[in-house]
């Protein structure tokens, strides 16, 4: 018998304490990210870095530490500057999708 795969599309909003608003659309299957769009009123220079972060998060397990590490690695590789949020804040925003299930 074919096993049942759980696929969940989530949309979540996360207000960074004293900071910016991050919204996330995420497609999760068996606890791993299949696709993700990170939205918000933060700043990121260069701006194109966000698309790379979203691409690199595909296949990553929905777990705060792993997500933070991926985001931080992409930021470092691009010498990118994230303002109004940190890699950890974005990870927490993504993880809040899990809590809303």
């Amino acid at each position, binding site marked *: 018998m074919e096993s049942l795969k759980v696929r969940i599309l989530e949309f979540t909003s996360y207000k960074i304490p004293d900071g910016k608003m991050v919204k996330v659309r995420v497609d999760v299957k068996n606890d791993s990210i299949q696709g993700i769009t990170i*939205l918000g009123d933060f*700043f990121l220079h260069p701006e194109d870095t966000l698309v790379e972060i979203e691409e690199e998060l595909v296949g990553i397990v929905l777990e705060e530490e792993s997500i933070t590490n991926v985001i931080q690695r992409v930021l470092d590789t691009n010498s990118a*500057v994230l303002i109004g949020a940190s890699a950890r804040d974005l990870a927490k925003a993504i993880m809040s999708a899990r809590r809303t299930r």
Partner: protein
Amino acid sequence: MAIDEAIMRSLKEERVPPTLRLYRWNPSAVSIGTFQGMKEEVDLEYCGKNNIDYIRRITGGGAVYHDFDGEITYSIILPRGHRLAPDDILGSYEVLCSGVVKGLEHLGIDAQFKPINDIVAGGKKVSGNAQTRRHSCVLQHGTVLLDLDVEVMFSILKVPQEKISDKMIADVKERVTSIRDLLASDVSMDELRDALVAGFSEALKLELVPGNLTEEETALAASLVQEKYATDEWNLSR
């Protein structure tokens, strides 16, 4: 937005000088930050019915309602390495925002820069600002509120109707203000424009020379409208 980008591209080619631009939006429009979701932030149906444009910026930050009768937008475009465009992004916000702070002082308003990207007076936000660095340039643009209609703002920005309570409107009025509110006087658009010109010139120690867009900038802006800023592909990309 297209004109801002056209100026950046022309400045990169050294065909135009660093530029300060003051403008209004006709028709009124809502702009969203480059990372925001259009449908999450803006009530497109309300905009359609009320002849309000919507557009995605190339800068981060939040959604802004540019009311033709209630707001002046400025943009300042400088080459990377200019004395007013240091590599330190947060520091450069403060440098460039000092033009707006000084302009408000000309109108008799005591305003301060509030990191990351706001200008406040009496503890309330009166100007929001956003920056991008590309095409070998630094672009900072921002809004300066002359007048504010919170009810209209809430109709445009996507806040669930049931959540638009009197308290919420009161909360926003506690956080956001306008020049006419601050001075309890009917300051005109021209007065605000003149104050901003004087403020930027003094605070940034710039000699501002009035000018027009070059033919090249005008043509480039027109093609950017066609290919980018008027397209769903850009505006609804997130």
